[in-house]
């Protein structure tokens, strides 16, 4: 209940907030796809893509730098691409010795690395914007309308609902452990790694049983309200001409980016 930290939605009214969620989901995925299609070192296109994001930020009323400030999530993973710097053949740019090894950064390697990181960083910003301006249940409705199998969307919305209940439960379990993790003055407490792992395993087991039994009660509650195996939902989203227009406009921008990325 208190895990507000999990809600990424930012209240507000703006052109982007009020856009049909289907349009938002489609444009987001198309944007990420377009990034993946752009060749390495398509600087002009990358710049246009960033401009696209800045405009979307501005239109959403969250401030120009909103997604930028939150976009560093994917950066640690960039380590995985760092070997590209050295392993792609090309003209050496710089060399250095580290841990008794010679490293040579090549120009082609540099281009590839920077391109990968930029693509990733742009994609993450777009995804951040999507959840910041669309309530999560609406994203799930949109997925449903976009023919994602119902069973998956339904599991996802249950997950979202009980996420808050169960993470609260975990927080309380962790607190209980902390509260009793005392140490007598001057003594080293804490137990062995094995023991600590077993405590966590017990907590996981506890949590599993409680979740399992809760799912029984939820099932009963559903039965009590007429559930017969097929879940019916009602999503009163109405597609408006404006939604369609903005969606098409965004897709045209993406096509232009692709063209820009392939100019010689």
């Amino acid at each position: 209940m208190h895990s507000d930290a999990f809600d990424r939605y930012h209240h507000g009214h703006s052109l982007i907030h009020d856009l049909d969620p289907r349009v938002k989901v489609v444009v987001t995925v198309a944007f990420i796809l377009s990034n993946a299609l752009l060749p390495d070192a398509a600087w002009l296109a990358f710049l246009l893509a960033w401009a696209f994001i800045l405009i979307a930020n501005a239109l959403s009323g969250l401030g120009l730098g909103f997604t930028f400030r939150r976009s560093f999530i994917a950066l640690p993973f960039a380590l995985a691409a760092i070997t590209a710097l050295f392993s792609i053949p090309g003209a050496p740019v710089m060399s250095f010795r580290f841990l008794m090894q010679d490293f040579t950064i090549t120009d082609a390697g540099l281009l590839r690395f920077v391109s990968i990181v930029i693509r990733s960083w742009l994609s993450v910003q777009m995804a951040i914007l999507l959840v910041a301006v669309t309530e999560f249940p609406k994203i799930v409705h949109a997925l449903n309308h976009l023919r994602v199998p119902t069973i998956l969307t339904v599991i996802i919305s249950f997950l979202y609902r009980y996420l808050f209940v169960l993470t609260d439960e975990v927080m309380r379990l962790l607190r209980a452990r902390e509260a009793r993790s005392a140490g007598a003055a001057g003594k080293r407490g804490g137990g062995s790694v094995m023991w600590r792992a077993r405590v966590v395993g017990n907590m996981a087991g506890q949590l599993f049983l409680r979740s399992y039994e809760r799912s029984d009660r939820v099932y009963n509650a559903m039965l009590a309200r007429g559930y017969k195996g097929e879940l019916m939902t009602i999503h009163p989203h109405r597609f408006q001409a404006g939604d369609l227009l903005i969606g098409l406009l965004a897709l045209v921008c993406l096509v232009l980016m692709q063209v820009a990325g392939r100019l010689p």
Partner: protein
Amino acid sequence: MHYSPVALHIPDGFLSLVVSLICWAITAVLLAMAVSRTNKSLGEKQVPLMGVMAAFIFAAQMLNFPVAGGTSGHLLGGALAAIVLGPWAAMLVMTAVIAVQALLFQDGGLLVMGANILNMGLITAAIGYGLYRGVANSSRNTKLAVAGVAAWLSVMAGALATSLQLWLSGTSNLQTVVIAMLSVHALIGVGEALITVAALAFIMQTRPDLLDETSASARGGRGWVAAGVVLSLAVVLLSPLASAFPDGLNRVAEDLGFIHIAQSGSGPLAGYSVPFFADASLSKIAAGMIGALVVLAVAIIAGRGLQKKTS
């Protein structure tokens, strides 16, 4: 808030389009099978059970315990989910978890979600369940021990698959990424194994009915044993190959022309100018030893699984 410890979530941009799409295709096929199977076996109860269980996995990933030097052990949960819920249901549950992590928290990308589901949800469930199923009729201690090995291997398999995808996409050099990923996840896997074993022991003690022969846990067929064993052997054989003799694997991929398609346009990987672990002999020896041990364990499991089948 810190909620998802696993370093396996690939963000968008790190896999090439072709690799992303291939992974999506494999994932989609497996998920379609999972949907139809769970529909049959669980019926109308499927929805609340899997929804709440997905929330459970999500929440359980927040549980951690201090190991040493500021690092902590965590749960990924694929193997545990598969052992208690059966493989198909576990796949759906893990898929929902990974989808929410990507959609809500940008932990892992959207276009590469197929790959993330494959690595963290499908492969882990298959290995975890397959190996455990192989000893389903053995003593409690054997089951727990095998569950531990399976949990460890499932994490290693996810890490290996991630590395291979990064390599095929031209994002990383094969040897470096495999060695780095596997050595980190060898440790993470130990945490996974310990927690999985303790959680199973807890369930065996308090609700043995959830794990007995008539439960959802026992609904996967013997085919899973084969799948689990094959995947485990692939991990065990490929890891040393990729970390100690990367040229061989690279050659195969090049000969098949696969690597060029996968990297779609970006220059091919040639030669390795970074001998990060130039002196490969150490890693060869280590890899060889771990490999031999795991082969032994897997062989025993396979033997038991087949024995049960014939008897």
